C-alpha cells in the first residue's frame, strides 16, 4: 500500500466520522502538530481527542478533499471542512453556526502507518464562522 493509499484510508474514514477507522492508519507514537489547537506532541491519544472533538462538535461533518499531493513519504491533503456546530468546540460555545474552513494536512508515512501529522488552518476564520468575538473571551457570544 502506497503512502497516498494509507493517507486516503485515514481521510476517508474521517469523512465517514469513523475516528477508530482513521486511527487504524496511525502509528501509536505518531508525532502530532496542530498549531491552531495548540496540540504539539507524540502519541495517538492527542490525535484521537482532536478527531473525537471534531466529529462530536460537528455531527453533520462534511469533509471534501480538494487536492492530494504525494512527495515521497510525505502526503499533503488540501481539504474543506464543513458542518453545523452542535457542541462546544475549541473553547467556542455552541451557537449552531455553520462552519466552512479550508485546511491542509501534511502526513508523513513510514511503512504502513502515518508517523507524523502537521495540520494547518486559520483558527481566526474558524472562530469568525462560529460567531466568536474575541480570542481572549472565546466562550462569550
Amino acid at each position, binding site marked *: 500500500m502506497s503512502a497516498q493509499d494509507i493517507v486516503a484510508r485515514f481521510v476517508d474514514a474521517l469523512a465517514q466520522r469513523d475516528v477508530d477507522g482513521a486511527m487504524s492508519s496511525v502509528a501509536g507514537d505518531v508525532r502530532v502538530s496542530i498549531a491552531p489547537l495548540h496540540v504539539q506532541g507524540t502519541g495517538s491519544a492527542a490525535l484521537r481527542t482532536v478527531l473525537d472533538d471534531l466529529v462530536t462538535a460537528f455531527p453533520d461533518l462534511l469533509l471534501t478533499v480538494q487536492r492530494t499531493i504525494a512527495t515521497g513519504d510525505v502526503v499533503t491533503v488540501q481539504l474543506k471542512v464543513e458542518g453545523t456546530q452542535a457542541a462546544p468546540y475549541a473553547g467556542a460555545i455552541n451557537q449552531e453556526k455553520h462552519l466552512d474552513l479550508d485546511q491542509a494536512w501534511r502526513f508523513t508515512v513510514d511503512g504502513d502507518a502515518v508517523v507524523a501529522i*502537521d495540520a494547518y488552518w486559520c483558527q*481566526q476564520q474558524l472562530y469568525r464562522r462560529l460567531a466568536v468575538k474575541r480570542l481572549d473571551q472565546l466562550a462569550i457570544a
Partner: protein
Amino acid sequence: MTVTVTRPRRTPETATAVVTEFFDRYRDHDVEAMTDLCSLNADFSYVPFEIWGKQRVLRGDGKVRTVGKTLWRGLINAFPDLTNEVRSVSANDDGDVVVQVDIGGTQQLAWGFAAPTGRAYSEPHLFIFRVGEDGLIDSVTAYWDNAGISRQLGHNEVD
C-alpha cells in the same frame, strides 16, 4: 547551422532549489526578485487572508503579480525585520513543492486591523508551490493560523 536551446528539465531537485531561493529572497525583502521566480500569470492564494468589510469580504486570492506582491510588500512594511526559517521541503516529479516554514517579525505599522504595538510573532506556515516545466513558480498557496499571530501581537478581536 541550427542552434538548439535546451532548458534544464524540471526535477524535484530543481523545483526545490527555486522554492528555496524564493524564501532566501523573501528573507532579503526583495519582492521583485521573489516575483522574478514566478511565471507571468502565476496564481496566488493566501487561504487565511480574509478581511470582512461591511459589504464584501476581501480575500488573498489572485495572481502573484497583483495580490501577491501587494501582500508581501505590505507585510514587509508592517514588520521591517520580517524573516523566515524553512523547516522542511518535499517535492515530486510533477513540480509540486510543499514547504514548512516559520515566518515572523516585529510589528511597526498597522497590519489588517492590528494596530502596531511593537510586539513580535513567529508562526508556522505551510506553503504549496507548483513549479512549471520552465523552472518558474506557477502557483503559490499558503496556510497558517491568524489567531496565533493576533494573540502574539496583542490583538484579541476576531475581526
